[in-house]
C-alpha cells in the first residue's frame, strides 16, 4: 500500500523503501492542456548551477544517467528513473515540476499525482487536484532532497509565470535557449517521449548502463507494470501484484519497515509480499536446511516422516488460490540461518531489521531506538520496553508539570521513563500500531495517551482542551516541537485526513493533528455540543480548522 502524502509532508526515502533505484511517475492532465514535466537537479543553494541536470524532454538524462526521463507509461503522464546512490554529491535536491504549455492555469487540472515506485510496488503518492491551485502555470510537485539522507517532500507550490518563473527561481537567469524550446513540442510529448524511453527497460539490451551496483537490497528497479499507452488509468493495484517483476519488497529479514499509515495485513488472497508464515520464505532454490516443508508447487508429496494422509477426498481439492504459484525464484539472499537450523529458518522472517538509524520500525507494532545514534536520551512511557540490548539505564522521569496537570485532572497520570546509555531498546505496547513521526522544526499535537516515546530534544507542553462532555472534563494534548522523533501509537490502522473547513473528529478517537505545517499554530479546535446529550451518541466532536496542508490523525478506536 502506498503511503499517501499531503502537501507539505516529508519522509525519508529509506522509510518508504529500502531501494535506491526508484521510479517516479507524474500524472497530470487537464482538458485541452499540455504539460511539460521536468526534473531539476539543484545544488546546495537550490540553484540550477549545472544545466546538464535539467532533465526534460530535450535532455532526457543527466550525464551519469542517475536521472532519466522515461516517457509516459503505466498511466503516468511522465516518468523518471532516479538512481539515488549515483547522483553526484553536488546535486542536493531534485525538484519535479510540471509547467503548462500553452494557455491555461493550474486550477483547471484534473486530479493527478506524483508517485514513487520501488521494486514494482508503489510506496508513496502525493495526490493533488485543481482546487489546490489557482492561476499558477508552473508547479513544483515534489522534491527529493538530501538532508543527511535522501528524503521526499510533497511540495505542490507554483508560480504564475510558467517555466520562465520556474527557471528564474532555480537559476536566477532565464536561459533564453530553453524558453523557445518549451513551446516546441506541439505534438503531445507523449509522442516524443517514447522515442528514447522504451529502451530504458523494454529492450534487455540496454540494462545496466553503469557498473550497476545492482541495488542489493532486494529491490530492483522496476517500473510499475502496465502498458505504455497513456490512458490515465492509474495502474490498478492488482496489476502490480500480478506482475512478474515484483521483487519481495522487503529487505531480507522480511519485516518491511512500514511507514506510518501502516497498511493492514494484506488480504489473504493476495500472494506476494507478506508470505504466510508457513511458506518457505520465497525461494524455490535451496531451502534452508531444516526447513522441512516441501517446496510447495511441484511436490504434492508430503514430507517424509509425516506421512500425510493420502489426501482423503475432501481435503486439498480446492483450486490453489494463487499463493503457491506466486512464489517466483526471487533468490532472497538470506544466509545460513543463524541460531540453529530449524528454528532459525522458521523465524527468519521475523528477524529484526538492522539499519543504522536511530529509530527503526521493526514491524507495524514494534519500534527500535538505538540510543547510541544521536547520543541523546529517550523518554518513553513506562512499561513500554519489551527488550533491550546493551548498557541502558532506565530511570523514573518525573512527569513534571505535565504529569501533575494531567494526573491531577484526569486521575491517570502519564508516567515516563528516561532511557539513557548505549544500546538498543525495543518499544511496544499492547499490540498498538506505532508510527514514528520525525519533526524538523515543525510542531504536532498528540493526545497524551497516544504518546509512546520521544527524543528528549523535543520540547513539549501540555495543552488542555476543555469542553462539556469530554470524559474527565478535558482533553489533554501534548504539543511537540523541535527536531527529533516522536512515536505515536494508535489502536488499529489510522486515517490521516486533510484539514478542510468541515473536518470533524470524535474527541475520543482523534490521535494527533499538525500544529501547523510551518510552525504556525493555526489549527483551531472548537467544541461542538449537540442539542441533546445522548441524541446521537456522539455528543462531543472536535472541529478542526486550519490552513491547507494541515492534517489530523484518527484511530478506529474510541478510548
Amino acid at each position: 500500500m502506498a503511503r499517501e502524502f499531503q502537501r507539505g509532508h516529508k519522509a525519508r526515502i529509506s522509510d518508504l523503501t529500502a531501494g535506491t533505484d526508484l521510479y517516479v511517475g507524474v500524472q497530470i492532465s487537464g482538458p485541452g492542456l499540455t504539460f511539460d514535466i521536468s526534473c531539476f537537479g539543484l545544488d546546495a543553494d537550490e540553484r540550477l548551477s549545472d544545466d546538464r541536470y535539467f532533465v526534460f524532454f530535450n535532455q532526457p538524462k543527466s550525464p551519469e544517467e542517475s536521472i532519466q526521463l522515461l516517457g509516459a507509461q503505466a498511466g503516468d503522464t511522465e516518468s523518471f528513473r532516479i538512481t539515488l546512490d549515483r547522483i553526484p554529491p553536488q546535486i542536493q535536491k531534485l525538484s519535479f515540476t510540471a509547467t503548462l504549455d500553452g494557455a491555461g492555469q493550474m486550477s483547471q487540472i484534473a486530479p493527478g499525482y506524483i508517485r514513487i515506485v520501488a521494486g514494482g510496488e508503489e510506496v508513496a503518492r502525493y495526490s493533488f487536484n485543481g482546487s489546490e491551485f489557482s492561476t499558477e502555470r508552473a508547479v513544483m510537485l515534489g522534491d527529493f532532497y538530501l538532508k543527511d539522507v535522501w528524503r521526499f517532500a510533497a511540495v505542490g507550490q507554483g508560480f504564475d509565470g510558467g517555466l520562465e518563473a520556474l527557471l528564474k527561481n532555480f537559476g536566477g537567469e532565464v536561459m533564453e535557449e530553453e524558453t523557445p524550446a518549451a513551446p516546441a513540442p506541439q505534438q503531445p510529448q507523449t509522442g516524443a517521449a517514447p522515442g528514447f524511453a522504451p529502451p530504458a527497460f523494454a529492450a534487455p539490451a540496454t540494462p545496466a548502463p553503469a557498473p550497476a551496483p545492482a541495488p542489493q537490497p532486494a529491490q530492483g528497479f522496476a517500473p510499475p507494470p502496465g502498458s505504455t499507452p497513456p490512458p490515465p488509468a492509474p495502474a490498478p493495484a492488482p496489476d502490480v501484484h500480478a506482475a512478474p517483476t515484483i521483487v519481495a519488497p522487503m529487505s531480507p529479514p522480511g519485516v518491511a519497515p512500514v511507514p506510518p499509515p501502516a497498511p493492514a495485513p494484506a488480504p489473504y488472497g493476495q500472494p506476494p509480499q507478506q508470505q504466510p508464515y508457513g511458506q518457505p520464505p520465497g525461494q524455490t532454490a535451496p531451502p534452508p536446511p531444516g526447513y522441512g516443508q516441501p517446496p510447495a508447487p511441484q511436490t504434492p508429496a508430503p514430507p517424509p516422516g509425516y506421512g500425510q494422509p493420502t489426501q482423503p477426498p475432501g481435503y486439498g481439492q480446492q483450486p490453489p488460490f494463487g499463493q503457491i504459484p506466486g512464489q517466483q525464484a526471487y533468490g532472497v539472499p538470506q544466509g545460513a540461518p543463524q541460531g540453529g537450523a530449524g528454528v532459525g529458518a522458521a523465524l527468519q522472517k521475523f528477524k529484526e531489521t538492522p539499519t543504522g538509524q536511530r529509530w527503526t520500525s521493526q514491524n507495524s507494532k514494534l519500534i527500535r531506538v538505538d540510543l547510541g545514534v544521536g547520543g541523546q536520551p529517550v523518554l518513553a512511557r513506562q512499561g513500554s520496553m519489551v527488550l533491550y540490548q546493551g548498557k541502558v539505564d532506565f530511570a523514573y522521569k518525573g512527569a513534571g508539570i505535565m504529569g501533575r496537570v494531567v494526573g491531577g485532572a484526569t486521575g491517570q497520570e502519564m508516567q515516563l521513563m528516561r532511557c539513557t546509555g548505549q544500546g538498543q531498546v525495543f518499544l511496544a505496547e499492547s499490540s498498538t500500531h506505532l508510527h514514528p513521526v520525525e519533526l524538523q522544526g515543525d510542531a504536532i499535537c498528540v493526545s497524551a495517551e497516544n504518546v509512546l516515546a520521544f527524543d528528549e530534544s523535543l520540547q513539549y507542553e501540555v495543552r488542555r482542551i476543555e469542553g462539556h462532555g469530554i470524559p474527565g472534563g478535558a482533553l489533554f494534548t501534548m504539543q511537540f516541537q523541535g527536531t527529533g522523533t516522536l512515536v505515536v501509537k494508535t489502536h488499529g490502522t489510522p486515517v490521516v485526513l486533510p484539514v478542510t473547513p468541515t473536518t470533524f473528529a470524535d474527541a475520543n478517537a482523534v490521535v494527533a493533528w499538525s500544529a501547523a505545517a510551518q510552525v504556525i499554530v493555526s489549527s483551531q479546535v472548537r467544541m461542538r455540543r449537540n442539542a441533546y446529550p445522548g441524541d446521537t451518541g456522539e455528543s462531543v466532536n472536535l472541529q478542526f480548522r486550519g490552513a491547507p496542508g494541515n492534517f489530523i490523525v484518527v484511530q478506529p478506536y474510541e478510548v
Partner: protein
Amino acid sequence: MNQPLAGFAPAPVTARMDTHGDHMLKVAMQTGQDLFARVGSMIAYEGFIQYEPNPPAVRQIARDWITGEGAPLMKCSGDGLLYLADYGANVVVINLNGDGISVNATNLLAFDAHLTWGVERVKGLAKFAGQGLWNTRISGQGWVALTSRGKPIVVDCGGGEDETYVDPDALVAWSPNLKVKGKRSFKAQSLIGRGSGEAYQMAFSGQGIVVVQPSEDSTDRLRFRG
C-alpha cells in the same frame, strides 16, 4: 452470494502444520501422529478427530505445572484437518529439525506429541515465594506452533558479553541454550514513591535467539502456585 468469502477457503495441504491467514493454524492430522494442543484452542475440524483433555502423559510431565492439576493441554488424535487459534493471536509455525526451543507456557499453541518436551521453571525468577515463570522446552523432529500477540520480532543475542534484557510479559520463546537470569534494572532511588514500571527483566546471554511479541499481556505469566 459468497463470492467475496470464497477467497478464504483453505489452501491445499502442503505440510503437517500451516497457517491460514496470520492468526489461524491448520494441522493435517493422521492416526499415529498425535498432537498436543492448548485446551480450548480448537475452532474447527474436518474428519474424525478425538480430543482428550488432561491426558495421563501430560500429567506426568507437567505435574509441576501451575497447581499440578489440569494441565492446559489436550491430546488430539485422528484423521482430518484441525484448525486452531487463540483469541486472534498471531500464529508462528516452526519445524524443529532437531533443534530445541523454550516457549513460554501461555504462548504455546500446539506441538507434535512425539517431540521431547518438559516443563521447567525458569531459574532466577523465583524471587517471590510461590511465583515463577513456567516454560516448556521442546526439541526433536517435528512441528511446533506458537502464538504471539502481534507480529513477533526475533532478536539474535549475538553471543557477546552484552546481555539482552527482555520484559517477561513480552517474552515468547528463546533458544534453550541461552543463559537466563533475572535482573532488576531500576535503581532503588527511582523506585521511591511509585509503582514499578520496568522493574524486572530477564537477561539472556550466549548464542541464540529470543522471540518477543509487541504486547505485554500480563495474563498468567507470573502465576501463583498452590
